[in-house]
């Protein structure tokens, strides 16, 4: 695979793309704000007083609706793409995605427990209820991943192939449990569950951004430090070991990072497919498999892609909106097919 573009130019292009996506995400929405009002409202948000009553509305839409939503999209997109790179590196397979180690199905299981069980319990404390779903999804993702990792270990070594199969088995098991909860759910909870499975950046607020921000920052700082080890892993585990990398430790770190990052993203925005699979793939096609470039570039591309997908999600059906999982899958699946077919010739 020969790089199509040099890393430096790719970074410039992706930074510009992300800046454009950020700008569009802040400037466009169902409510059409004049460009000047958006700019003035932004100044007001930054503390510069600007006169004008119409600006109050603009400031509110920008500050309370679009900005938290944009930040959420940025973080979720970046962390999903980063974890996708980590998984494809760990399994040495471009088809790997974070779902393989059970984090997605675990989170879905946690969410269905929260949605169906929470509805059945009824009387949760007011303050706790809004966070129950996110918390259960996060814990579920982490729990199932820990189990998959544990099952893949034998004699102090992690067998990646065993882990992959254990992931498949536990995903099936979680699927059965989710099916049971679906069966027990009533109409309203069933719809909530379905919508959660399609993901959405709707209703983002600053209070919910903090945990995700911390985790994304940790993952984004940590993974690039393991870029060389990931490069060595591409040669094979024993080769990496001979090159002097603590392979077992690296594997554990990668699994933990992914569980943490994807768990937090899913807890904040529901299931959003294809970003973790397609984005690393795309970037690899452009610059080749060097993880020192691949990791940061994927983060930039993942954030841009998710923001643009969200833009479509909120504009297409306005005043209603489309779950973002539909948009990412609509873009991701045909693109993936294209990659497959292109490789054949």
């Amino acid at each position, binding site marked *: 695979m020969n790089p199509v573009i040099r890393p430096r130019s790719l970074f410039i292009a992706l930074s510009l793309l992300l800046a454009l996506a950020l700008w569009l995400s802040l400037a466009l*929405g*169902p*409510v*059409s704000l004049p460009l000047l009002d958006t700019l003035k409202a932004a100044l007001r948000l930054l503390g510069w007083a600007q006169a004008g009553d119409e600006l109050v*509305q603009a400031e*509110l*839409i920008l500050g*309370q*609706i*679009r900005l938290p939503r944009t930040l959420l999209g940025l973080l979720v997109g970046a962390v999903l793409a980063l974890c996708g790179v980590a998984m494809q590196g760990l399994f040495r397979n471009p088809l790997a995605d974070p779902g393989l180690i059970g984090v997605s199905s675990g989170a879905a299981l946690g969410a269905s427990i929260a949605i169906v069980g929470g509805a059945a319990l009824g009387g949760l404390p007011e303050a706790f209820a*809004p966070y129950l779903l996110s918390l259960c999804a996060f814990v579920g993702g982490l729990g199932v991943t820990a189990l998959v990792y544990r099952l893949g270990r034998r004699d102090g070594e992690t067998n990646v192939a065993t882990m992959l199969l254990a992931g498949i088995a536990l995903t099936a098991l979680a699927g059965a449990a989710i099916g049971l909860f679906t*069966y*027990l*759910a*009533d*109409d*309203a909870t069933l*719809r*909530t569950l379905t*919508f959660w499975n399609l993901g*959405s950046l*709707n*209703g*983002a*607020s600053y209070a*919910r951004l903090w945990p995700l921000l911390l985790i994304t920052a940790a993952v984004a700082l940590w993974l690039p430090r393991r870029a060389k080890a990931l490069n060595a892993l591409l040669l094979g585990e024993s080769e990496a070991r001979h090159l002097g990398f603590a392979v077992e430790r690296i594997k554990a770190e990668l699994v933990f990072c992914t569980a943490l990052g994807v768990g937090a993203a899913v807890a904040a925005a529901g299931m959003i497919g294809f970003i973790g699979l397609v984005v690393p793939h795309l970037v690899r096609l452009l610059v080749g498999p060097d993880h020192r470039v691949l990791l940061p570039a994927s983060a930039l591309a993942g954030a841009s892609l998710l923001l643009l997908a969200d833009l479509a999600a*909120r504009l297409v*059906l*306005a*005043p*209603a*909106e489309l*779950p973002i999982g539909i948009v990412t899958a609509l873009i991701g699946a045909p693109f993936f097919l294209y990659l497959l077919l292109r490789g054949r010739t």
Partner: protein
Amino acid sequence: MKRLSSLLALSASLLSCSWLMAAEPLPQRWISSGGSLSEWVVALGGESRLVGVDSTSQHPESLRALPSIGYQRQLAAEGMLTLRPDILIGSEEMGPPPVLAQLRGAGVRVEMLSSKADLSSLQASLQRIGTLLGEPQRADQAFAAYQQRLQQQADWLVTAQRQQAAPGVLLLLGHAGGSPMAGGKDTSADWLIERAGGRNLASHSGFKALSTEALLALDPEVVIIADRSLSGDAAREALLQQNPALAATRAARNQRLLMLDPTLLVGGLGPRLPDGLAALSAAFYPASQPLVAEAKPTP
């Protein structure tokens, strides 16, 4: 004397204050979320003020022409703001909460009304809608009439049951005849069957698929079909075609497969409910004179 005049002035200012409160402008641009609430807004004369409804508001037909704000549990703040609403009314299912907070922040009045299937909740909701529309008397009248109709229904049932025992009933909710689910305990279906004077044969809770054998074993006298995509004879035929065993039940042999609009099963007590109940009752008790002339049993 001076003290008296100041007292007078004070009371006058207090009075004018309460006048101002009363003259607070009524919300003119409404968004309604929740099927039966939207129906009530229309029934109380507020249709011209509606600028948007959610996806469950399908009655009356004219509401479908309004902009849709999507599913009531997944509302989007900015999308709704494009409709420049003064007020959003909805049931307790409306959400998610952060979006409602964003709307409140944007100066939209958010009124959460109860959609529980009991008369006191309905009364409170109707009074609230009436006040907000500036038609409190109309709301009171509507509630009194509604209560009276349900009372008539209950009285009629007592008389009817003297002549005939309550029939065993199953309500099947399906989609174009396929995979029908029977409404069990603690569902709106159960409530409806009981109010119409039937005995719900399904003993599970919630809506669950019944096996063919279980269906035959229960052998319902009456089957109510609530089909989400077909209506009338088409729904009946589709159900029989896809579930041939149903034809062997008493209900089918005696041609007592009734049709029900599935929207009556969601969203609490709507304005169309008394008619629906009366039609079901008339079919449950064919020997009695129907309560409403037009509510003839559908054969």
